């Protein structure tokens, strides 16, 4: 087929959500929501270091803000973000596998990092972790001694189990790998590249990742060594 006809053939196709770049943008926007959430979530949980009263008070505030509607609006937004993020990731990953069915005998990668190459795997682990985490500390089915309304108590008894704590720590390391590349990657997807800010983009990803992962990992450790009890 002549080139011009092939072009006309495909000119009708291509909405935003079927386009590769469009899906990347979906991933980046939902990625901002997710990493914004994990950051605020970590800061909120820092109140565990202040003791039972402040933490449970904060939990109660979250459940009663805007007459109890707030948390449901928030949950709906997070659910949509996770589903869209996972959908875009799956769809793009399948396309990428199709684009290179046969690999090289010995490819020598030059620039890719551990973090960039494991995005899809750390992502799947995070997806599993999110489900477990909700069953553990939100609804309680995966918790040995769940007491509704006592966020602080559930937090402490939950992490006293070494297995649960270990899984949390592993999941947080995956989160670190995922965020470190993801946060940098999304700036690229939004087109925020400029020599003046390129170093800053990397630094920002590193700092935010270290803060979130460091903070989150400190919780199970603090419970296990008895700082929080």
């Amino acid at each position, binding site marked *: 087929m002549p*080139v*011009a006809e*092939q*072009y006309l053939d*495909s*000119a009708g*196709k*291509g909405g*935003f959500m*079927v*386009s*590769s*770049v*469009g*899906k*990347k*943008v979906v991933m980046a926007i939902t990625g901002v929501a997710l990493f914004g959430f994990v950051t605020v979530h970590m800061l909120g949980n820092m109140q565990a270091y202040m003791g039972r009263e402040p933490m449970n008070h904060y939990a109660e505030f979250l459940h009663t803000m805007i007459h109890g509607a707030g948390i449901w609006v928030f949950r709906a937004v997070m659910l949509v973000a996770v589903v869209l993020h996972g959908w875009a990731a799956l769809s*793009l990953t399948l*396309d*990428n596998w*199709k*684009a*290179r*069915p*046969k*690999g*090289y*005998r*010995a*490819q*020598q*990668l*030059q*620039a*890719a*990092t551990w973090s*960039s*190459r494991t*995005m899809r795997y750390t992502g799947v682990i995070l997806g599993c972790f999110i489900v477990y985490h909700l069953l553990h500390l939100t609804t309680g089915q995966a918790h040995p001694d769940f007491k509704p309304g006592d966020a602080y108590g559930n937090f402490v008894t939950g992490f006293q189990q070494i297995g649960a704590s270990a899984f949390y720590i592993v999941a947080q390391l995956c989160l670190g790998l995922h965020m470190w*590349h993801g946060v*940098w*990657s999304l700036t*690229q*997807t*939004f*087109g*925020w*590249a*400029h*020599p003046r800010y390129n170093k800053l983009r990397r630094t920002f990803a590193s700092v935010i990742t270290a803060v979130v992962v460091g903070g989150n990992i400190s919780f199970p450790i603090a419970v296990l060594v008895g700082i929080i009890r």
Partner: protein
Amino acid sequence: MSEKHINLTLYVWRQKNAQDEGGFVTYEAKHVSTEMSFLEMLDVVNEGLIRKGEEPIAMDHDCREGICGQCGVVINGRPHGPRERTTTCQLHMRSFEDGDTITIEPFRATAFPVIKDLIVDRGAFDRIIAAGGFISAPTGSAPDGNAIPVKKTCADLAMDAAACIGCGACVAACPNASAMLFVSAKISQLALLPQGQPERYSRVKDMVAQMDDEEFGTCTNHGECEAACPKAVSLENIARMNRDFIWSSLTYRPESGGSGGA
């Protein structure tokens, strides 16, 4: 640097045609001058094969001076071989040591089907260009060269993008076989100049749509393309393409419907 002679073992991908399964064949390359280019080394190997009555190794090449973008094979797992900013034709055998084994494979991507041995069909790139990688200008009344002012930094960035020779190494290097470095270079070289403005936001949409249709993968920002590119085309171009694509989507209106009620 003085001339040396080295002996090499080559693992070369041989494939009769697009349908053939293909596989690696081992060749000994003896007494190779370090002053030969990589393609000259293959020429000598091919002369030996022809003399023995065997089929020579098919490979693409044209200018042999690093400007046409025809050459390009994967050498020891790196498109265009071990030297940065160097095409296969400009790679010299002094980059290798006596006794080295060298694996030579074609670029691998669904969008670049193998035609024979090391030659792949890069027609997908042509179709992407045909989808929008041009400007429309009336001919016959060429405007004065200096009539349109161009900012120096924009001219420089456009030239950097225009350095792309369309070799396809970026696709070959990308773990996702994404063509975004090439496509973004071809978009940027026009988007940065005044002459490229009228079609700027339809161009990005059309070229990205064609790129997707050709079954290239999607960028996950590994940066392998930039590292493999013989012309050092920058990842910044991909960011520019994404930015223009987002703007194009946000401001899209169908072309025929420009009534506006006035």
